[in-house]
């Protein structure tokens, strides 16, 4: 493993896999457990059940909200209703990739590329700069779409129909752009072990158009006091382990694009967007800034992109690990390959720490804050509720 080593716990916590706890540069076999919640309802308080399948929820997830009626005293989140068992052991890495892409289809590029980087690390496959720039284009397109979805879903509970539909329109335009660039609306089969196949003609003018449209929309949203009031001081969280936009909104300078420099973000003049309001507004602000930054990164990376088909390695044994910055935060993959087939895959999803941050930030808020705060974390259940076999 070139980028990671097994060792003692230390450094920034990234998350848990099924077997390990992952830190910034080490993987620890001593698996950290999150503190279990216990809350006894006081007289007059009750438990409100929400989910797993009901309106307002994109995926199946259940909440137990402890409340005297309006104030939220505690939230228990159960993301494991839709836990899928995915069989990867014994598959060739290229075949396993078909399933990896479908762990979280909305973030297929982040999952696929992180897995590919771990396999390349395990088998000693060298990846050219051109391929790495193509991968940056894919990842940043995905980040734009993902962040647009969060902004749209923040407008939704506010009943803010016009901007909600304008963002939904923009998100669909980005999806069509992704389809034009990669051939598939969700990046499926666009990248491979050691390779990547994208078409960049027409990308530049379209990305400039999308950036300009969003910038106008974002500036208009910042003028809407009613909308901002729903976000400000909602879900304040600045302590404990935080990842991705939630950490950066709290002023933490953390981003795998800089701290885990396998992909050449540094050469593109990438700067981390941080903010000093650790609430739903801060997370909205950071995500919006990242849409604009990602557009700039794509325009920078575009000139250096290249394509290459799958690379077959002569090596058949090895273990590798890689981490990248998915739209929700650090996404980590560990892969062990034996005789050319997968022996073990471990995934650390950013949604695990984001759910923990969400439930901590929800205490003391009221019911009407719930959806704004939940959506501001951009949590995806599908990448968390998986058991790899």
């Amino acid at each position, binding site marked *: 493993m070139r980028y990671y080593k097994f060792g003692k716990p230390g450094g920034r916590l990234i998350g848990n896999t099924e077997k390990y706890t992952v830190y910034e540069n080490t993987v620890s076999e001593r698996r950290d457990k999150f503190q279990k919640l216990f809350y006894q309802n006081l007289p007059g308080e009750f438990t409100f059940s929400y989910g*797993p*399948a*009901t*309106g*307002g929820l*994109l*995926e*199946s997830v259940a909440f137990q909200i402890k409340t005297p009626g309006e104030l939220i005293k505690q939230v228990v989140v159960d993301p*494991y*209703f*839709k*836990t*899928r*068992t*995915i069989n990867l052991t014994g598959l060739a890495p290229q*075949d396993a990739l*078909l*399933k990896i892409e*479908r*762990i*979280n*289809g*909305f*973030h*297929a590029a982040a999952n696929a590329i992180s897995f590919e980087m771990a396999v390349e690390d395990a088998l000693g496959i060298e990846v050219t700069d051109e391929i790495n720039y193509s991968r940056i284009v894919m990842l940043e397109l995905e980040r734009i779409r993902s962040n647009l*979805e969060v902004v749209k879903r923040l407008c939704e509970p506010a009943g*803010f*129909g*016009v*901007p909600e*539909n*304008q963002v*939904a*329109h923009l*998100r*669909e335009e980005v*999806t*069509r752009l992704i*389809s034009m660039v990669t*051939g*598939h*609306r*969700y990046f*499926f*089969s666009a990248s491979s072990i050691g390779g990547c196949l994208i078409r960049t003609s027409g990308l530049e003018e379209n990305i400039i158009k999308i950036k300009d449209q969003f910038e106008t929309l974002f500036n*208009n949203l910042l*003028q*809407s*006091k*009613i909308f901002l009031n729903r976000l400000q001081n909602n879900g304040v969280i600045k302590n404990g382990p935080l990842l991705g936009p939630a950490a950066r909104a709290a002023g933490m300078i953390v981003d795998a694009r800089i701290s885990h420099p396998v992909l050449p973000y540094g050469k593109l003049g990438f700067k981390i967007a941080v903010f000093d309001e650790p609430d739903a507004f801060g997370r909205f602000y950071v995500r919006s800034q990242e849409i604009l930054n990602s557009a700039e990164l794509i325009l920078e990376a575009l000139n250096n992109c290249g394509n290459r088909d799958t690379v077959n390695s002569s090596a058949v044994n090895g273990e590798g690990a890689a981490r990248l910055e998915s739209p929700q935060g650090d996404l980590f993959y560990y892969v062990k390959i034996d005789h050319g087939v997968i022996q073990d895959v471990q995934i650390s999803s950013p949604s695990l720490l984001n759910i923990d941050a969400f439930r901590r930030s929800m205490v003391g808020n009221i019911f009407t804050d719930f959806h704004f705060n939940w959506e501001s974390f951009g949590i*995806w*259940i*599908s*990448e968390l*509720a998986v058991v790899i076999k």
Partner: protein
Amino acid sequence: MSSFWFLNGIKKGIKTEKFPSAKPEFPPDWPSGLSGTYSANCPVKAITPEGWIMEKCIFCRRCIPNMQPTKEQDIFTIKSGEDIFRKSFHVFPLDSGACGSCNIEFLSVFSPQYDANRLGIFLVNTPRHADAIVIMGVMTNGMKETLDRAYEAMPEPKLIIALGVCTITGGIMGEPPLDREKYNVEIAGCPPSPYTILAALNAAKGAGKK
């Protein structure tokens, strides 16, 4: 400020396409219909010497160059419908174990480009108000009871719509939630595009028309 957004919306003009009464403006290559010759390279055996089985296909592109996309978006099957849903059709989505892409594609049919509401198709928050349940994803143990209870909570008549290859045949990810004979509508794709979903929902609501 409220008038600002109203005028802002008006100024943007109409973004909705004429589909399904006109051809789709931006049909994707993948997923879409496939045509060509037999390829042994299919990981889900969707391509047989007898032809292409759209309900199994995960659109992974391994069959290229033998098979090529046609951009046709009508990759769905209406097995039965109800005449009563002709003018308004209320659908409840249920994620039995999806990867998230079907969830987003389903919601996309309500975005301005597609605007399913204009066709009388509406999203509801509870199965009590639903004419059809749209199931997405493979079967998972935790969602089995929820699926059964949601179906039982729906008023008669009701339809079951399988959205995506995971729901129809399990695709590459697992087992489907229900036997195929229980589905009234099967929408192929991994995930199906909003064009396919919109066309399928529109066809399903008029399927019982005499």
